[in-house]
C-alpha cells in the first residue's frame, strides 16, 4: 500500500511538472486577450518615459459608445487618460482616468463611454520599464434617438428606459444613508439573458449600486462618477440576485430597470 501511495504521488508530481511547462509555453505566446472586434494599439513601455503622451486620437462622425480595454504585462503604475471634445454622458467632465498595473490573461481594465460626435484622444503616463501595454477600443454608433434618450438621462430625466425595460426600483436618495440596502431581488428558475439599466442623477457623495449573485458580484454599476449603466446584458444562471445600494451624502435619484 505504501508503494501504491508513493507511486501515485510521484506520477502526480510528473503531471504537475508537465502542467507547469505547458502553462509557461502558452503564457509566453500571448498574455494579452483583447476581445475580437476591438482595434488594437500596442505600446512598448521600454523605449522612453511618458507623461500624458498622446497615443491616438479618433474622430467620431456620430454619437457613439466607445469601449476601452487595457492590459499590460508590466507591474509599474501607469495612467491612461481619455479626453473628449464634448461632454461624456453620465460623467462629471469630458475627461476620465484609468489606472493600470499588471493585468494579463483574464485580468484587464475596461470602461465604456458615451461620446457625442467629435474627437476623443487617449494619453499615457508611464515610466520607462520592460513590458508592453495594449489598448483595445471599439466604437459603436448610437442612433440619434438613443443618444437623445441618454442625454435626457444625463440631464436628470431618469425615467427614460430603453424599449422593453420595466422599472423595478426608484428612490430619491437625498439625505438617505444606506449600507448594503437590499432594494430589489431577482429570482430566476432557469438560465436567462437579462438586460439591466441603472441611472442616477447623484453628482456628489458616495453612491454605489451593486448586483450580488450567489457566485459573483458587480460592484459600482453606477456612482456619481459614472451615472449611467445602460443596457448591460448578462446571462444569469438560476438563483437569486440582489440589487443593493450603498449611499451617503448623495443628492439625487436612482432608477433600476430590468428586461427579462
Amino acid at each position, binding site marked *: *500500500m*505504501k508503494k501504491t*501511495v508513493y507511486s*501515485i*504521488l510521484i506520477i*502526480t*508530481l510528473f*503531471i*504537475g511538472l508537465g*502542467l*507547469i511547462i*505547458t*502553462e509557461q509555453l*502558452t*503564457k509566453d505566446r500571448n498574455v494579452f486577450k483583447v476581445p475580437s472586434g476591438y482595434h488594437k494599439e500596442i505600446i512598448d513601455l521600454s523605449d522612453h518615459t511618458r507623461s500624458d503622451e498622446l497615443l491616438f486620437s479618433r474622430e467620431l462622425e456620430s454619437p457613439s459608445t466607445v469601449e476601452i480595454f487595457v492590459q499590460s504585462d508590466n507591474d509599474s503604475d501607469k495612467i491612461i487618460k481619455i479626453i473628449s471634445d464634448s461632454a461624456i454622458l453620465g460623467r462629471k467632465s469630458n475627461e476620465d482616468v484609468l489606472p493600470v498595473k499588471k493585468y494579463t*490573461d*483574464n*485580468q484587464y481594465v475596461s470602461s465604456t463611454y458615451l461620446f457625442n460626435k467629435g474627437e476623443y484622444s487617449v494619453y499615457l503616463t508611464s515610466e520607462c520599464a520592460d513590458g508592453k501595454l495594449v489598448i483595445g477600443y471599439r466604437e459603436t454608433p448610437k442612433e440619434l434617438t438613443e443618444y437623445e434618450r441618454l442625454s435626457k438621462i444625463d440631464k436628470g430625466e431618469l425615467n427614460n428606459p430603453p424599449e422593453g425595460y420595466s422599472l423595478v426600483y426608484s428612490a430619491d436618495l437625498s439625505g438617505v444613508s444606506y*449600507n*448594503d440596502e437590499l432594494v430589489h431581488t431577482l*429570482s430566476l428558475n432557469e438560465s436567462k439573458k437579462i438586460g439591466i439599466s441603472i441611472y442616477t442623477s447623484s453628482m456628489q457623495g458616495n453612491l454605489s449600486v451593486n448586483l*450580488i449573485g*450567489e*457566485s*459573483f*458580484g458587480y460592484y459600482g454599476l453606477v456612482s456619481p462618477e459614472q451615472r449611467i449603466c445602460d443596457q448591460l446584458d448578462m446571462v444569469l*444562471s*438560476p*438563483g*437569486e440576485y440582489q440589487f443593493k445600494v450603498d449611499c451617503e451624502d448623495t443628492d439625487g435619484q436612482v432608477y433600476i430597470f430590468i428586461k427579462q
Partner: protein
Amino acid sequence: MKRQYPTITQANALFFFTAVITFVGSIFFQPIVGFGANLWINEFIYILLPPILIVRLSKWSEEDIFRFKKTSVRNNIISVFSGISLWFFINYINILISSFFDKQVGTFLLDIPDMSIQQSLFYVIGTVVLAPICEEILFRGFIQRAYEGRFKKYGFVITGVIFGYLHILNGISDVIPVSILGIFLGYLVYKTDSISTSMIFHAMTNLSSVLFAGALRAKVGSSIPLWFHILSIAGLLITLILFKCLKAEPKSDEDTEAVVIEKRVSVAAVILLVISAVYLTSIGLLEVLSRLDVI
C-alpha cells in the same frame, strides 16, 4: 522502551506549523504560481512533507504510523459509496451555514481568479488526488495516531475537529461540515486500521464536490427546496448504514498498547492547541469583519 508513535505535543506542534505555513505561504505563492498550483505546494510541501520527515528522522515505521495497510475489498467499496453519499449531507450543512452568515452578517466573496486550463487541472487533481493522500497522511496518519495514544476510543473525534478547524482558511462555513467529514474519516481509519479507506472516502467526497457543487448550488438557489433537505438527510443515513457494514480489522497496535498510552496530555500540547485555535479564529474574525464591511 523507545516510543514508537508521535506524542500529542508533536502532533499539535505540527498542526500549528501547518496552519501558519499554509496561510502565509499561500499569500506569498498564490499570486506568483496561480490558485491551482498553490494548492499543490500546500499539499506536497506543508502538509505531506513534515509528517513524513518526522517519521523517517525518528526511525518510526511508516506502515504503523500512517497505517499503510491493505483492507478488505468490501471496506474499500463502502468507502467509495459512503464518501459520495456523505458529501450531499456536508454540502447541505455548508449551504445552510453560509446562507446564515450571508443573511445575518453579510456576504463574503473569495477572490478566486479566472483560471487557465492548466490551473484548473492543477486544482482538480490537487483536490481529488493530492488532498486525500496528503491530508490523510497528516491527520488520520500522524495526528490521529498521536491522539489515539491518549484517547484510544475517541482520538478520531478530536482529530476530526482539528481537521475541520484548519479549513477555516477556506471560509468559516467550512468548519462544521469539514469537522463532520473529519470525524467520519477518522472513524473509518479507527475501524478498518487502514488509511486506504479514508483516502478513498476523502477522494470521493472531493470528487463529488468538483462534479456536483456548482450545479447543485445553482439548482437550489437561496431558498432550499424540500427535495434538497430529503436528499441530504438520505445521504447521511446511507453513509451511516454503509458504515454499519464495515468489516472491523484487528488493530496492529493492540499488543503494543503499553508503549503508546500517554498518561496525560502535556501543558505544551495544550498551549500549542490553544495558540493554533486563537490563530485560526483570528483568521475567521477577519472574514467576519470583511462580511461586515469593516475591512
